[in-house]
């Protein structure tokens, strides 16, 4: 190890480095001798399959975990972080996928919360607001320092997190799958800001499964595989496209399956039908306005829209988790009573909610418990009032293998990597062989190969005769998989297009609130 006094220029280049980082969790080595450098002025992508150890490495770099072996260096000096606060002091800051903002406070208050520099014991609101505004301007991140966080969109909240980092003097910013919650426009904005940071000499570590965005944005990539570094590339000198990155990650080419529209959906009765369904948010504002939709067996209806336009309410209303203020829902020919999730699922409805951890999954329970979250009432899982552990474990094992989940039946869902938790949820819902499947952002957080296997599973389910309502912000995915596309904007269905003739531009016009005539499309 180099002592502090004999720094070379090379080490000056790195804001933060990892040397031989090893971290094991019970039953899995999450990081296995990882070397990693974040350099000044670069956006450095960290790639890898689900569970390959990306998040773990970043948590070690920011003091959330302690490595079992290995050394973290800041500017060439060995450091040993005990907590994220130690890492802040060294200028390293991580934006997690779940933000840690206090939603009843303003942006400026959140930025200074729990943080005081010397001589700054008193909160000088005006001054902080000005400083936050200045930082926002510096990185082209538009956000009002006086706004209350609960009013902000997900993208804006993310900007607050980033501002918080820079306000606290971050030199290295680590972003764990930041774009998975953003609209394409918001992601574009984020990239502009990140490039700006890099050009000012800060360094950015960027985790993503969206490879085209990585190849467009990043200067260097490091690929993790089962905990160790399996490859790296300098994108400034060699150009690697998304396919090349995928090959680096999984060692083979991934071709996404698409809907082959050879067998047209018959004129059968819709399996799921919504007639003028309306619903409100918790604060009483309308979330859905007279939504009329129908999905026939064997069909995939994609619901496209900018996040926050009623997609969450749509899924919840169908699943019986939210009361409707008007309209009717028919499930397989019979009316569906509102507010009864069990009745809906008993009648063959499966639902993958947008909120995985906390709604779709119970994070503090084991993977096994979560695999039977809905089916625990089935006779074959128990004896009388008792649940038989062996049978639950057998079913769990089957699901874990079938969906290639990295994790054991008795680990807590909270301990799974983001993508693996998502796989558990999809495994449970898809394997219940539903007649109607409502699925929100199915491939969010999945690596390329998992993404592909989920896509083909959805297509298989449709081929089997399931009616699938796919709510997604990923337009490309909808265009690839759906038979018809319904576009939702401000809680209203702007129009329904046949996927065959639709292109991204048309859908985009509808998403922005335009009408079918504006889009120049023919309604099916």
């Amino acid at each position, binding site marked *: 190890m180099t002592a502090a006094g004999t720094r070379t220029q090379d080490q000056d280049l790195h804001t933060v480095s990892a040397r031989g980082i090893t971290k094991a969790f*019970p039953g899995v080595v999450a990081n296995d*001798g990882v070397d990693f450098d974040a350099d000044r002025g670069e956006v450095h992508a960290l790639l890898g399959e689900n569970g390959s150890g990306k998040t773990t490495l970043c948590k070690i770099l920011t003091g959330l975990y302690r490595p079992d072996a290995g050394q973290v260096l800041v500017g060439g000096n*060995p450091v*040993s972080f005990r907590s994220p606060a130690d890492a802040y002091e060294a200028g390293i800051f991580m934006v997690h996928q779940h933000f840690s903002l206090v939603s009843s406070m303003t942006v400026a208050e959140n930025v200074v919360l729990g943080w005081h520099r010397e001589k700054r014991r008193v909160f000088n609101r005006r001054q902080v607001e000005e400083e936050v505004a200045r930082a926002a301007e510096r990185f082209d991140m538009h956000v009002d320092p006086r706004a209350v966080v609960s009013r902000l969109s997900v993208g804006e909240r993310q900007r607050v997190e980033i501002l918080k980092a820079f306000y606290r003097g971050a030199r290295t910013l680590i972003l764990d799958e930041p774009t998975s919650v953003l609209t394409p426009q918001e992601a574009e904005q984020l990239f502009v800001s990140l490039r700006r940071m890099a050009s000012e000499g800060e360094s950015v570590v960027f985790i993503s499964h969206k490879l085209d965005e990585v190849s467009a944005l990043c200067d260097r990539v490091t690929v993790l595989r089962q905990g160790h570094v399996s490859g790296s590339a300098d994108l400034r000198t060699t150009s690697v496209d998304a396919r090349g990155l995928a090959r680096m990650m999984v060692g083979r080419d991934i071709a996404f399956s698409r809907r082959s529209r050879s067998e047209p959906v018959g004129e059968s009765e819709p399996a799921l039908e919504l007639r003028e369904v309306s619903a409100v948010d918790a604060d009483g504002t309308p979330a859905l306005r007279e939504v009329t939709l129908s999905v026939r067996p064997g069909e995939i209806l994609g619901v496209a829209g900018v996040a926050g336009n009623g997609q969450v309410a749509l899924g919840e209303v169908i699943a019986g988790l939210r009361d409707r203020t008007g309209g009717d829902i028919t499930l397989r020919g019979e009316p569906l009573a509102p507010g009864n999730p069990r009745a809906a699922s008993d009648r063959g409805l499966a639902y993958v909610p947008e909120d995985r951890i906390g709604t779709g999954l119970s994070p503090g329970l*084991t993977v096994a*418990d979560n695999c039977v979250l809905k089916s*625990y009432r089935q006779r074959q899982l128990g004896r009388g009032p008792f649940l038989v*552990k062996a049978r639950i474990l057998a079913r769990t094992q089957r699901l874990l293998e079938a969906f290639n989940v990295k994790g054991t039946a*008795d680990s807590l869902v909270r301990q799974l990597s983001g993508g693996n938790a998502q796989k558990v949820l999809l495994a449970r819902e898809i394997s219940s062989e539903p007649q109607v499947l409502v699925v929100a952002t199915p491939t969010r957080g999945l690596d390329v190969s998992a993404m592909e296997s989920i896509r083909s599973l959805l297509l298989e389910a449709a081929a089997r005769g399931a009616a699938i309502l796919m709510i997604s912000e990923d337009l490309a995915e909808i265009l690839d998989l759906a038979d018809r596309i319904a576009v939702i904007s401000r809680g209203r269905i702007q129009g329904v297009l046949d996927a065959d003739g639709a292109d991204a531009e048309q859908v985009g016009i509808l998403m922005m609130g335009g009408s079918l005539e504006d889009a120049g499309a023919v309604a099916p």
Partner: protein
Amino acid sequence: MRWLPEIHFERRLKPPRWLGPATPPIAVIVALAIGALVLWASGRDPVDIYQRMVRAAFTNPGAFSNTLVSATPILLTGLAAAITFRMKVWNIGADGQLMIGGVLAAAAGTFFAGQSLPVVMALMLLAGIVGGALWAAIAAVLRAYLNTNEVLTTLMLNYIAPLILFYLVFSSTSYWRDLSSQHAKVFPLAKTLAEEHFWPEYGTTVVVPFGFILGAVLAVVLLFLVRSTRFGFQMRVSADSPAAGRYAGIRTGRLLVVVMLLSGAVAGIAGASQIGDFSHRLEPRNLQFAVYGYTGIAVAALVRYHPVGVVISAVLVGALSNAGFNLQGLDLPLGLIGVNQGIILLLVAASEVSTRYRLVIGRRGRDETRAPPDGESGSTAVVDGIGNERPSRGADS
């Protein structure tokens, strides 16, 4: 300050499995050591006092029996607390539920005077269950359907229950009041259970009250209920994530009511046991001052709401109060005993922190961090070391 080692709390990622069960006993030992210091500082001989405490709580003739007597009501109220607290529903109303259970049990015991002991016992238990559950139902329904804070409602109901008892026994000529003699008319008293209907005790050297045995059996039943039944599964899901519970089709409101009723029923059994095992008649003042309900919460908290653990902690707390009662006297003021009891309870309760954090002394900065592993051997050693650990089991411990 350089000579001071740096001390930190560090979060444990995964507490070793043995740590959870081992902490309370370790905490008791540490507490006894601290208590010894206190005794020594006050000029007493800690060894002598501890010997006397052990004798007074366990080894003297009849001492352990008395400990069990003290443990019985708090064992039952402890179970009542454990059931709901596990589900993150804060029923602190065991006190009131116990009293109302006692009211109905006392009525049942005196009303069916002609019946045999088993029949009377069964009726008293049933009455106690109904009384406790009814009293809990008020708060349960308010919480489930009007989203009223159950801490407040159960607390308020704890104030109302003794007033009902006082009214029934002291301020009215209700069924409960003994009006059979002139004396009883002047000094109000509740009707007494017929002697052949006193609940049985078991054992010769150590006498175990029926209520204690009932509590121990209940503890095992409740453990199975939570761990192995579908109902328990629902409880665990709702406790961990109410939103996931609703998503899974669990009727969370109904579940909450059922759990509250169950808790109230167990507290009601404590009330029935008070009448059948010990006082044999409704004693409003004693019940009010005993605060069994609140002590039960402490008993349950000591063992993190583990039903079988409640049996052990009820005996511990029972022993402490029994020893304190016997020891207080000329050379040992009640306050000093209280300090020792307090230290024990405080340390056991606080020791939970040690399952989640570990204390790190020194080892800060770059001086003592471990060097990176030299090649493969370093990393494999880590795998082997951790491989022995087992993943934890989540909420059902």
